[in-house]
């Protein structure tokens, strides 16, 4: 797959973005810019709107108000035909994994590349490489229902990285993992970031946030802080 990364400039811009579910405002008046190549943490208490924020970005749902620009494209003005292409420029780790239960681990990861029309030989190699990175290469034939939460999460990370996206949106990608596995996943995301990729990572885990250059804090759907994490590191494991 061709690399869709941009070198600089905002890859994401949000203007007064809000999302309501019925009367409930899950997200309100969020405005910000995220440059290509940034590693941004998204944090806040449960129900603060982290997943909602990411859902709007990966085009699962339209915002109730405001504008979102992704790689300069206004999502509200985009035709349905352009949607798949844009989604393929994103790698998403869903909070609930969203693996296809009837397909095995290999097929779940290969799906992204197949859908992008990648050469089958390349797909085969690439899927093995990413599964090896997350330590799941010997579980390729297993089906998701037979995997533990942490294993599913690792497959989800592999799938997000398989298509060489420009941006990775990760919703609690280490939420079900022990510290060692979580460290492996964080290292993968850091590698991706070092290679020029943009990462937005939602987490409650303060360990991950320590020393982060940019942290977005949501509370009750509002963006209450946007800046570096100045708190001292609770432990050493961090970007």
């Amino acid at each position: 797959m061709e690399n869709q990364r941009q070198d600089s400039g905002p890859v994401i811009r949000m203007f007064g973005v809000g999302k309501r579910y019925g009367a409930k405002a899950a997200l309100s008046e969020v405005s910000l810019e995220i440059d290509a190549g940034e590693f941004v943490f998204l944090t806040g208490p449960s129900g603060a709107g982290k997943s909602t924020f990411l859902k709007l970005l990966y085009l699962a749902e339209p915002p109730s108000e405001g504008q979102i620009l992704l790689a300069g494209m206004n999502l509200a003005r985009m035709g349905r035909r352009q949607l798949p292409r844009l989604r393929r420029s994103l790698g998403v780790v869903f909070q609930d994994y969203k693996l296809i239960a009837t397909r095995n681990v290999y097929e779940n990861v290969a799906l992204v590349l197949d859908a992008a029309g990648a050469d089958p030989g390349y797909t085969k190699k690439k899927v093995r490489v990413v599964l090896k990175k997350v330590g799941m290469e010997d579980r390729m034939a297993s089906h998701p229902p037979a995997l533990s939460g942490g294993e599913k999460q690792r497959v989800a990370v592999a799938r997000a990285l398989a298509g060489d996206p420009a941006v990775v949106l990760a919703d609690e990608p280490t939420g079900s993992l022990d510290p060692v596995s979580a460290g492996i996943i964080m290292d993968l995301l850091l590698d991706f970031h070092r290679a020029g990729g943009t990462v937005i990572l939602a987490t409650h885990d303060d360990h991950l946030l320590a020393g982060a250059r940019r942290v977005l804090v949501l509370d009750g759907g509002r963006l209450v802080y946007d800046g570096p994490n100045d708190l001292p590191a609770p432990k050493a494991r961090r970007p």
Partner: protein
Amino acid sequence: MRRIFRHLARALADIRENLLLHALAASTIGIIFLLSGTFSLAIVNLSALMDRWHGNARIMVYLDDSGPGRLLEGNLVSLPGVKSVTFISKAEALKALSGNLGPQAGLLANLDENPLPAAFELSVDLADQGPEAVARAAEAAGALAGVSDVEYGRQWLSRFTMFIRLARVAALALSVLFLVAAVFITASTIRLVLYNRAEEISIMRLVGATEGFIRAPFYLQGMIQGLAGGLFALAVLFSFFALARSGISGGLTLGGFTPLFLPVWAWASGLAAAGGVGLGGCFLTFIRFGGR
């Protein structure tokens, strides 16, 4: 090309997973096409039979004793469609009759006068004209002076022709109806499969699969299902036909008539229609339930 194989593999895996559902739908489609095929086969053979009888169509033209008699031959030969004319004199007619009567022929010996009229037997060439040609020729012959009566299988022929025409229209209308029914049957099976796959489809959309990529395996499933039904119908129809034909050649006779199977174009387009039904059913499902 590789993509098609991949979609095909996907479609076959799906069919295997919902084998019973697909088998049921395919056999329903098969029965529908079998009905249409049986109609068509009956019509093809009835038409062929009728054409044979037409080819031999005969008109008897009876003459007035006082008329010009045999001199009418020239007029009759020149009638449109008439292939040949044979004169049967009064004496020949009586001889033929007594021949037919056999032992009872003695009855005729008591007649002091021959009551039978002289006649012409016309044979009409109908190779490229309908049964109307017989009627036209008979009517023209009847209008000649010196002709007392004209006889041919008028009513029988026209009734049979009417019947076949009606049957053709009915079979066509039924086939269209059946086709629509088959499309809806396919649509409902595909809808069930789609329903089972709703989560998978939404995940595929989220990771950037195009609608074409998502739908192609379903279209293939529909097409395979339809083709399977069509092939099933064709196989059953041909077996029945072969059985019937061997029955006929083994004893039953239809005056040397050999039953015909559907022409290649007919069953080939039937198969194509079965495949098309599958695609159409799929299309319908996606139009009605395929939104995001």
